[in-house]
C-alpha cells in the first residue's frame, strides 16, 4: 500500500526534437505540442522537396561546376550526336569507363590508350566538355571513398591535360560508393565499381 503514495503524476511529451530532460518531464505543459513536432518532420519532407530547385536533371543548367545544359547521366553520352566512332567496338572511343585496383587511383596500362583517344578527341573538339565521374567500391568508409573516387577522376584528368586537353573542358565529380554500376557485394561487382566514367556533355 505504501507504494501507492509513491505513484507520481507525470504528463509526458513525446516531443523528441527538443529532447526532454528529466526536469522538463515534470512540466505539465509539455503534453501540448507533441503532435506539432511530429507534423514538423512531415513538413520537412515536403518543403525540402519543393524548395529543392535542381532536383531534376532538366533544371540543372545553372548548376555549380559549370556543367553544360541538360547534363547527361552516367553512360548517357548517346552515340546519336557523337559520331559513329563512339559506337564502333574496335575504336577506343567506344569505351568510356576506366577501372582501378583496390584502394588505388593509379591508371592501369590497359586504359592508357582509351584515355589517349578521348584526349585526342577533346583536343580536336575544343567546344566539347566532359565530366569525369570518380567511383569506388563499397568497402571501407563512405567519405574516404568519396576522396578516393576524386583521386581516380583526377588521375584521368591529369593524363588528359598532359596530352593537351584544356582544363576548361574537364569537370571532376566523385560519387564514392554512392552510385554503383553493379549492385552485387563481391569482387566481381567491386571491380566494376572502382571506376571513372568519362561522360561527354550535351552540346
Amino acid at each position, binding site marked *: 500500500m505504501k507504494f501507492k503514495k509513491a505513484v507520481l503524476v507525470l504528463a509526458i511529451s513525446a516531443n523528441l526534437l527538443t529532447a526532454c530532460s528529466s526536469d522538463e518531464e515534470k512540466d505539465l505543459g509539455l503534453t501540448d505540442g507533441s*503532435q506539432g513536432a511530429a507534423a*514538423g*518532420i512531415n513538413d520537412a519532407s515536403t*518543403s525540402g522537396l519543393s524548395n529543392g530547385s535542381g532536383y531534376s536533371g532538366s533544371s540543372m543548367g545553372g548548376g*555549380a561546376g559549370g556543367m553544360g545544359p541538360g547534363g547527361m547521366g552516367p553512360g548517357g553520352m548517346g552515340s546519336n550526336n557523337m559520331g559513329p566512332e563512339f559506337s564502333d567496338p574496335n575504336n577506343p572511343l567506344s569505351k568510356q569507363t576506366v577501372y582501378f585496383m583496390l584502394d588505388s587511383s593509379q591508371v592501369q596500362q590497359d586504359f592508357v590508350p582509351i584515355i589517349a583517344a578521348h584526349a585526342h578527341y577533346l583536343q580536336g573538339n575544343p567546344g566539347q566538355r566532359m565530366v569525369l565521374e570518380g567511383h569506388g567500391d563499397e*568497402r571501407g568508409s563512405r*567519405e574516404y571513398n568519396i576522396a578516393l573516387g576524386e583521386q581516380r577522376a583526377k588521375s584521368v584528368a591529369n593524363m588528359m591535360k598532359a596530352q593537351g586537353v584544356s582544363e576548361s573542358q574537364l569537370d571532376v565529380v566523385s560519387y564514392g560508393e554512392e552510385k554503383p554500376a553493379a549492385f552485387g557485394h563481391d569482387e566481381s561487382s567491386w571491380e566494376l565499381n572502382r571506376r571513372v566514367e568519362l561522360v561527354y556533355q550535351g552540346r
Partner: protein
Amino acid sequence: MSVFRAILLCGLMALYAPVSQAEMNIEITEGIESALPIAVVPFAVQGAGMPVDVRFVVNSDLARSGYFRTMNELDMHSRPSTADQVRFNDWQALGQNYLVIGQIIESGGQYNIQFQLFDVYKGTQLLGYRLTSAPTELRRTAHKISDLIFEAITGNKGVFSGRIIYITSTGGNKQRTHRLQVADTDGFNAQTIATSPEPLMSPAWSPDGRQVAYVSFERKTAAIYVQTLATGARSKVAEFPGINGAPAWSPDGQKLAVTLSKDGNPDIYALNLSTRSLVKLTQSNAIDTEPTWSPDGSHIVFTSDRGGKPQLYIMPSSGGQEKRLTFSGDYNAGATFSPDGKNLAMVHGNGGDYRIAVMDMATRTVNVLTEGRLDESPSFAPNGSLILYASRKGGTGYLSAVSIDGKMQQKLMFDSSEVREPAWSP
C-alpha cells in the same frame, strides 16, 4: 495473443509509416550473460483497445539495451496489474530480479498509463508513474517508460526515446531514390525529411538535436546543407568546387568541420556557421577527411592516407601537431568519439574485412567489436552504452547495434535492403 499482437502491429505500420513502409524487426543476436532478469507483466487494459502494445515496446527496449534479460510472458505464473496482487516469492522463484506491472485506462480518447517497478528481492517499489498519452504518442510514451526503468536500475540515462537518422535507397540505377529518414530508435515512426534522385550522405545531428547537416548531390555536385527538423527549412553551407563532405558539428554547435578539395586535394576545414568563415586545419598532400570532434572540443580526429593507407590521426581543433593514432590493421577510418570522450569507434579493416572497433583513448588499446565483413558508420548512443552501425549480409543492408564491450549485439531489420549511415540523436 500473439496473433492479436501481429494484427495490431500491422495496423500500426499503415498508420505510422506511410512514406517508407519501413517495417522493422529487432533480433537480439547475442546477449550478455550477466544481464539482469526482469519480468514485464502484460499491462491490464480497461476501455477501448490499444493501438500499441505498450508492454511489448517496453519489453523490447529493455531486451535490446543489453542490460536486461526479459521474461517470456508465457512463463509467468501470475499477471498482477496492481501492487496488492504481487507476490514477490513467486517472482523470486522464477529467478527474476525486477518486476514491472501496469495498467492502462482509456478515457475520452486519452490513455492513462500507470506502471510500477519493483525490486523482487527487497520487495520494494523502485519507481511508480502515472502518464497520460494521446493515441498517436503511445509508442513514444512506451519508450519514455523504458528510459525511466533503465535509469532507475542502472543509474545511466535511457536512450530509447531518442531518434535515429539514416539514409535509404530504392529503385534501380536509372530511377534511384535516396531518402534521409528519421525514426524512433527501434525503427518505427520513420519519416522522410529529404528525398533526391541523386545520393544523400553523411547525416550529422547538431548537438542540440534540432538540426541535421548532410551532403546532397542533388545538383550533381556535392554540397553540404543544414536542415532544421521541426520546419524542414534548410540552408546550403558549403558548395565549393570538388568535395564538400563529412560534416561534423563542434560540441558548441557553432562550427562544422568539413572536408573540401577546392585547393586540390581533400583537406579538413572548420566552417563557422554564423560568419561562414573557413579555416584550413590540415595541409597534407594526401587525403584528409572524416573529421570528428572530441566532446570537449579540444581535438579533432580524422582519416588520412598520408602514410600510404587510411589511418586515424589526431590534432588540436585549431589545427597543427597531427599525430597518428592507429597502428593495428591495414585500414582505420570513419572515427567517432563516445559522448564521454573516453572511447573512439572506427571502421577497422584487416585482411579484407571491415568491422567496428573501439579504441580506449587512455591506453590506445583497440578492441574489435563486430564480426561482419562490411560494417561501417559507427554512431554512439547518447549514454555511450551502444554503438549503432551499418552492416550487410548478402544482398541485405541493415542497421545493427553493439554494446561497447562487444558482448551484446542486435540487428534492426528494415524493409529496404539499402539502409545505411545511421546516427543516434544526442
